[in-house]
C-alpha cells in the first residue's frame, strides 16, 4: 500500500498568500468569539463547588432545583451529565457562603428530595484562592513553552524558522480556544494540558519540514527558496498524513471510549491535530519565505574557510 504517489513537487508556495489569508480570517474569527463569548471555564478556574451524583432512574430536575433554592442556593446550576440518570450540581463561590460544608449540605438536600436515592460520584470544591493561581500558572506554562521552543529552534535552525514555527502554532492555540468559546465547551485543566501538549506536538511538524528545508538547501544549489520549501513539504507529506492519522486514531479512541471526563480533552486534541497539520505546513512555511530565509543561512560561505587556511 502506498497512498502518496507524487511525481513533481506540489507548488504550495504559489498559493502562499491564499493560505495566509485563510489563516488570518480563522484567527480573527477565533479572537472575535473569544472576546465576545469568552471561555466557559470549569470550576477549577472559577472556584466553586461541583457535586456529581448518579440515580438508579432518571430524577426530575425541577424539584431538585427548588429544594436547593430553599436551602439557600438559588444560584445552583442543576443539569444532566452524560446520561439522564447522572446529575451535576454547580455552585459558584459567594463571599457570604460557608465553603467548608457546602458539599455535605448539597448531598443531604438531594437525599431529602422525594424520588430515587442519589449516589455520590464525585465532589469538587475549589476555593477562590486556587482558581486565580491556576489561571496564572497556566499562562506561565504557556510562556515557558513558547520561550523554550523559540530558543531551541533558533539554536538548532535559525531565528526565522523559530519565529515562523511559534507564530503558526500559537495560531493553532488561539483557534482551539476559539472553538471552545464558540461552542461554549467547558475549558478545564485537562483541556489546558491538551492545548499545551498540542503546542509541543505541532511544532514537531514544523521541525520535520524545516529539517528537510535545511537538507535541501545544502544539497540542491539550483533551487529557489519557494522551490526548496515546496520540495520539503512534498517529500514529507506522506509522513505528515500518516503520523497525524495515527495520533488522531488514538485520540478518536479516547473520544469514543474515554467517557465524559476525557471528552473535551480529546476534542481539544482533535482540533489541535487538524489545525496543526495545516498551520505548520501551510502557515509556517510561507512565513519562513516572507521572513527571507535563504540558502546562505545554512551553507557556510567559502570565505571563512580560506581565512582558516591562511
Amino acid at each position, binding site marked *: *500500500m502506498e497512498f502518496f504517489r507524487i511525481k513533481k513537487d506540489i507548488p504550495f508556495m504559489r498559493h502562499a498568500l491564499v493560505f495566509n489569508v485563510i489563516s488570518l480570517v480563522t484567527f480573527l474569527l477565533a479572537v472575535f468569539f473569544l472576546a465576545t463569548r469568552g471561555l466557559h471555564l470549569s470550576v477549577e478556574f472559577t472556584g466553586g463547588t461541583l457535586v456529581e451524583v448518579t440515580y438508579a432512574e432518571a430524577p426530575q430536575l425541577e424539584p431538585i432545583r427548588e429544594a436547593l433554592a430553599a436551602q439557600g442556593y438559588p444560584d445552583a446550576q442543576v443539569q444532566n451529565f452524560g446520561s439522564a440518570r447522572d446529575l451535576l450540581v454547580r455552585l459558584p463561590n459567594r463571599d457570604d457562603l460557608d465553603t467548608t460544608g457546602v458539599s455535605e449540605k448539597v448531598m443531604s438536600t438531594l437525599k431529602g428530595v422525594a424520588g430515587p436515592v442519589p449516589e455520590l460520584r*464525585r465532589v469538587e470544591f475549589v476555593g477562590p484562592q486556587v482558581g486565580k493561581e491556576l489561571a496564572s500558572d497556566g499562562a506561565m*506554562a504557556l510562556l515557558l*513553552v513558547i520561550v523554550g521552543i523559540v530558543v531551541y529552534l533558533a539554536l538548532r535552525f535559525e531565528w526565522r524558522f523559530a519565529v515562523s514555527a511559534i507564530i503558526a502554532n500559537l495560531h493553532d492555540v488561539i483557534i482551539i480556544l476559539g472553538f471552545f468559546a464558540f461552542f461554549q465547551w467547558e475549558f478545564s485543566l*485537562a483541556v489546558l*494540558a491538551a492545548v499545551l501538549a498540542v503546542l509541543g506536538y505541532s511544532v514537531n511538524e514544523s521541525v520535520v519540514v524545516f*529539517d528537510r528545508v535545511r537538507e535541501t538547501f545544502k544539497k540542491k544549489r539550483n533551487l529557489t527558496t519557494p522551490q526548496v520549501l515546496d520540495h520539503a513539504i512534498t517529500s514529507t507529506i506522506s509522513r505528515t498524513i500518516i503520523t497525524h492519522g495515527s*495520533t488522531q486514531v488514538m485520540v478518536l479512541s479516547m473520544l469514543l471510549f474515554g467517557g465524559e*471526563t476525557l471528552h473535551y480533552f480529546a476534542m481539544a486534541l482533535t482540533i489541535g491535530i487538524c489545525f496543526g497539520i495545516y498551520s505548520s505546513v501551510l502557515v509556517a512555511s510561507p512565513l519562513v519565505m516572507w521572513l527571507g530565509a535563504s540558502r546562505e543561512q545554512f551553507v557556510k560561505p567559502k570565505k571563512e574557510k580560506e581565512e582558516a587556511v591562511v
Partner: protein
Amino acid sequence: MNRYPLWKNLLIGLVLLWGLIYTLPNFYGEVPAVQVSSAKATLKLEPAAVTDRVAGVLKEAGIEHAGIFSDTNSVRARFASTDLQLRAKDAIERALNPNAQDPSYVVALNLLSASPAWLTSIHALPMYLGLDLRGGVHFLLQVDMPGALTKRLDATTGDLRTLMRDKSVRHAGITREGSTVVVRFRDAEQREAARRAIQGATADLQLADRDDGVEDLKLVATLTAQAQQTMRDFAIKQNISTLHNRINELGVAEPVIQQQGADRIVVQLPGVQDVAKAKDILGRTATLEVRMVDDTPGLLEQALAGNVPFGTELYNERGGSPLLVKKQVVLTGDRLTDAQPGFDGQTNEPAVHLTLDAAGARIFRDVTRESIGKRMAILLIEKGKGEVVTAPVIRSEIGGGRVQISGRMTTTEANDVALLLRAGSLAAPMEIIEERTVGPSLGAENIAKGFHSTLWGFVAIAVFMTAYYMLFGLVSSVALAANLLLLVALLSLLQATLTLPGIAAMALTLGMAIDANVLINERIREELRNGATPQAAIAAGYDRAFDTILDSNITTLIAGVALLVFGSGPVRGFAVVHCLGILTSMFSAILVSRMLINFVYGRRRKIESLAIGQVWKPGTQAGSPAAGKSGGN
C-alpha cells in the same frame, strides 16, 4: 552490515526484561488485606514484634493468611477472600486493642497487590493509582500564615511589656499595628535604653525609630525575614504532624499528608467516603498541658490498687511505668512557642529544647523555684484523653523561658518528643481551599475507560501500520508495545501517581511515538525509491531519521516539562506520564525496532527486497524491483 554488536543487543534485551518484570505486578490484581499501624503518636510500631503477634493471633483464631509483610510504619497481612479478611480484622483488633475505647493500633481493611513475594522483594509494585481511579477524598489546606504572624506579634507585645518592666524602662504604651509592634516613649534616653534591652534579649526583631513629634518618640519593631521564615516553617511542620496524629484514628490504610508550596498541605485519604467525619477530624485541635507529678510515697501504690487520691489522675508514661499526676494545670501548649531536638551544651547527650513565651517563662520560673528535685509531667491531651509525653526531674530554677529536657534519651527519642510537643501546642489555623471526593464506582469506571481508550487506539494503529508498512509496520508495532511496557514499568518503579489524565497521556504518547517509526519507514522507502540497495536503505533510513526524531521529541519534551513545572493536580499527572513516555519512546522506536530489523535482515548478505510495502517510483508503472511482497496495488 546491519548488525548490532552483541553487547548492544544484550543491553536492549536486558532493558526489555527489566520492563517486563516491573510491569508484571500490574497484572496480578489485588487481594484483600488487613493493615496494622500505630494509632498513637507516642507509640512507635515495631514491625518485627507486631508481625509475630499478628501471625500468632491468626494462628490462634485458625485463619489462614497468604503472607504477612511489613515496612517501617505498618504490618500487612493478605487473605484469600474478603470473608477471611473481615474475620481476621476482628481477631486482630480484639487482640491488639484490648481496650476498644483507647486503641493503640489502627487496624484497617486494605487491598494489596496479589503479585508473588519475589516481585515485592525487588520493589516491583503495581502502579500507584490516584484518587480519581481508586476513590477517596482529597483536601488542600491552607495554613493561615498572616493569622500565625498576628498571633506571634501579639505574644511579642506581651514579651516586650515584661521586658520593659524587668529592665525598668519607662514607656508610654506598647501596641501592635498591622505587622509591627510600636513602643512609644516620651524622651530619647528611654528609647535608647529600650533599644539596648530588646537587642540584648532577642535577635528576631528589627528596630527602627519614628518621631511623630517632640513628645511622641516611637520604636517600631518588625520580625526579621529570617524569624518570619522560621515561624512559617514551624507552623507548617507542626500542622502536618498534628494532622498525622489525627488521621491515624480514621483508620485509613495509606493516607498522604504532604506540604505543597510554602503554606499548603495536601491530605489524601484513599477509600474514605465519609467526608463529614474526615473534615471534623482535620479541624480538631490537641492541647498540651504541663502538670506536676505527685511523688508522695505510697500514693502511687494506692492509686494502682484502684483508689486514686483526690486531685490527682493516673497516667502511663511513654515506655510504660504508671505516674500519678496532679489535676492542676501549670502551663498549657499556648505558652510553648517552639520545641526542637538538640544536644545538651555540657554533657553532649541528646536533649529537647523548649521555648516559652514571656508569660509562660514567668510561670515556669516560679514553679521550678519551688519544686527543685520534683518531677513535672508534660501531657498531650487529645479527644479528652491524656498521655504523658515526658516527665523530667526539675534540677534547678529555670528562668528566661528556655527549657531543656535531657537525660536517658536517644537522639530518636529526642526527635519524637520534640515533634509531639509541637503537635500538641496550638497550630496556626487552617482552611480547606480545595476538596475532591471520588466515589469508588466512578474510580473503577475511569480505569476501564482509560484502559479501553488505550487498548483500541493501540490496536487500530498496529493494524494500520502492519497493513501499510508490512514487516516494518509489524516491527514498529512491536516497538510501540515495548514503549508501553517500559512506560508502565517506569511508572511502577517510580510509584508516580497514575490518574485518568495520566492514562490519557499514555494513550496520547503512544499516538505520538509512532511518529518516529513513520519517519524511519518513510525514509527507508525514499532511499529505496532513489535506488539505494536494501541494506544501505535501512542504514541510511535510521541514521537520517534520527536527527529529525531528536528535534521533534525535544520540542514535545519542552512542552511536557513546562506542564510539569507549572501544572498542579490533573495537569501534573498528565505531564509526568507524557515526559516519561517521550523518553521511553526514543529508546523503543529507534533501538528496539532497529534491533528487530537487524535480526530479520542484518545477517543476509544479499536481499532481493524489503517487506516495507510497495515502493512506487516516479516513471515506473507498477512496483519497483525493490518492492516487497505487496507488489500489486
